[in-house]
């Protein structure tokens, strides 16, 4: 506006293009070629990503599907009053009861050693399954009941075809006579392979056929709840303050940079921090999902703060102006208009942060959530594992049955992650900004 008499351009001289000029054709061809390559590379990248995903899920499914079924054997069990006292059924000698039941399956066996080996077909957990039935219903004492109990791991592998019968006997984990006995049961129609509900309803166990994810699922649930309850309000509060109220100066710049850097800190560092502070100074219990959740909250906090600030920033200034214009105070603008509009974005960011936390292993290992714990946690303060640490434990176990169970546990974890991300996508599309 320095020149007040702004020059009016001469409109009669329009741009002339000579379309037959070969230079134009060459330029066009070059542009098309570039576009072709860019598209091709993009497609190639996506194909590679999909192939990787396919291989991952494919290999997990091909080993993991075996763990969703568990071989069981049906037995007639006589609940001999000689072994169980009615006033305290839990203290009965159920091992003997199982032994007798197995002996009944093989009446022809006389030799004690053979009988002991035959008892090995039945899982060590069978006695507890029977005990639980009796404790639940003490009237059963003295009766004969039919129960289906899991077979032990090696026989489970045999039934699933994972144990090669053609390997020489000395290299096989089951001897010829053991296999023969199992086949005898199978022929009698006593072997079945029902859905392995124990995978979700049992806690961890040394015996693969009894091991389940209940403890890990509950542990992860408690840890995530703790993480959410801590990180969500604190994160939103911090983001609102930084975005809406904090003066823009050196200090707030410094804080911002630090938060962004915090989001990139390796998670194992947070684990070390938790180990030193939560366990060391505060003396909080080891292996507790609550402490795990606090650790995960430290990690999730920057994610939530960054997502919340982005969501707050995305609210159009016209809405703020509108509210200010009718005389709303700063707080009323933020809490009455900006925050509700930013909520979908905040929730999406939070869910993605929590999904990240759900899969996090390293910090939980450091605070001892990889302990071997055979009962599901009753409170967030009891010892427990979490899904990823449980996978870690199982992957480390020598028993063959844990191979497929590790894959199955990963599938369960992936299932939860997909569900959480789907929820985030759903929220995002449902509350797509409507202004």
């Amino acid at each position: 506006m320095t020149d007040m008499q702004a020059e009016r351009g001469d409109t009669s001289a329009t741009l002339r293009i000579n379309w037959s000029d070969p230079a134009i054709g060459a330029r066009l061809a070059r542009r098309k070629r570039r576009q072709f390559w860019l598209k091709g590379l993009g497609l190639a990248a996506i194909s590679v990503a999909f192939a990787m995903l396919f291989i991952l899920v494919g290999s997990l499914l091909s080993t993991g599907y075996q763990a969703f079924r568990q071989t069981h054997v049906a037995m007639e069990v006589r609940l001999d009053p000689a072994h169980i006292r009615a006033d305290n059924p839990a203290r009965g000698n159920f091992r003997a009861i199982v032994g007798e039941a197995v002996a009944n399956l093989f009446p022809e066996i006389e030799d004690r050693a053979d009988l002991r080996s035959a008892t090995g077909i039945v899982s060590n957990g069978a006695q507890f399954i029977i005990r639980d039935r009796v404790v639940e219903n003490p009237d059963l004492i003295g009766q004969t009941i039919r129960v289906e109990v899991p077979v032990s791991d090696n026989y489970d592998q045999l039934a699933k075809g994972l144990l090669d019968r053609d390997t020489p006997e000395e290299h096989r984990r089951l001897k010829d006579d053991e296999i023969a006995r199992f086949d005898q049961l199978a022929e009698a129609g006593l072997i079945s392979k029902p859905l392995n509900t124990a995978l979700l309803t049992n806690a961890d166990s040394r015996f693969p056929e009894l091991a389940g994810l209940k403890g890990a699922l509950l542990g992860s649930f408690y840890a995530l709840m703790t993480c959410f309850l801590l990180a969500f309000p604190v994160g939103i509060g911090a983001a609102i303050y930084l975005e809406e109220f904090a003066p823009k100066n050196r200090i707030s710049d410094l804080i911002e940079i630090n938060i962004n850097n915090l989001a990139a800190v390796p998670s194992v560092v947070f684990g070390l921090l938790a180990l030193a502070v939560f366990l060391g100074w505060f003396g909080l219990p080891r292996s507790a999902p609550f402490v795990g959740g606090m650790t995960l909250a430290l990690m999730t906090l920057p994610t939530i703060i960054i997502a919340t600030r982005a969501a707050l920033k995305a609210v159009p200034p016209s809405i703020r102006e509108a509210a200010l214009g009718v005389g709303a105070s700063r707080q009323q603008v933020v809490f009455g208009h900006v925050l509700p509009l930013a909520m979908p974005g905040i929730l999406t960011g939070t869910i993605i942060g929590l999904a990240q936390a759900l899969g996090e292993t390293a910090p939980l290992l450091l605070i001892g959530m990889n302990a071997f714990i055979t009962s599901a946690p009753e409170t967030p303060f009891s010892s427990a594992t979490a899904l990823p640490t449980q996978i870690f434990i199982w992957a480390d176990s020598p028993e063959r049955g844990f191979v497929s169970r590790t894959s199955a546990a990963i599938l369960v974890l992936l299932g939860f992650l997909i569900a959480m991300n789907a929820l985030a996508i759903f929220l995002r599309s449902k509350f797509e900004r409507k202004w």
Partner: protein
Amino acid sequence: MNDMTRLERKVDQKTIKISARDVQVFYGETHAIKDVSVDILDNTVTAFIGPSGCGKSTFLRCLNRMNDTIDICRVEGKIEMDGADIYAKRVDPVQLRAQVGMVFQKPNPFPKSIYDNVAYGPRIHGLASNKAELDEIVEKALRRGAIWDEVKDRLDEPGTGLSGGQQQRLCIARAVATAPEVLLMDEPCSALDPIATAQVEELIDELRRDYSVVIVTHSMQQAARVSQKTAFFHLGNLVEYGDTGDIFTNPEDPRTESYITGRIG
């Protein structure tokens, strides 16, 4: 409203609603408003015209202290409304903004129902003691905004679902719902088609009966049609201020003349 009105337009002496003296506005180092002194009359439409970036919006936003919300913005000088300094320490800008309503360039209804859009201001200022009173305020405001007949059957629908012109009239209704004394409008018609513009202009002329209206516009015709007083800004200075008729037919300053005849802008 045609150009005939200009001829019969005679500004009778009216009370001064807002008086600004030696107002300076700085955005950090930028000196956006320089030494502006102006008296804005009651029951009058005052138009601010001038080339883009000359500070019309900035000055308008001084009148309801909207500039307070911009961190780097600094206002100096004296602005009085009804004789009271609006930049005095004890003045609550939030209260002031309820008294000096504002309508923006782009229609910006809240993503809430039509009813809630209008009811929001009265609610936060506690203007209604019960639902019936609030209903009455909302209806009155929507009638003032000349939009009642179009929306009375769908007050629960979102305000964002209205057409652009309806949205802008809704925003005007929202602004008048808090019973302001002054109405500031920053290019209220720039996003509207000619028909909606005509409706809003008619409305502005109506509003003059109860309010002092200040309107920023880029359209000379609009300024000529709706305003009684016109102020021409250039590069942060108030170049000329006077009766609209005089400014358009007989400008004193050569810069005003160049702008009006379309040679700067």
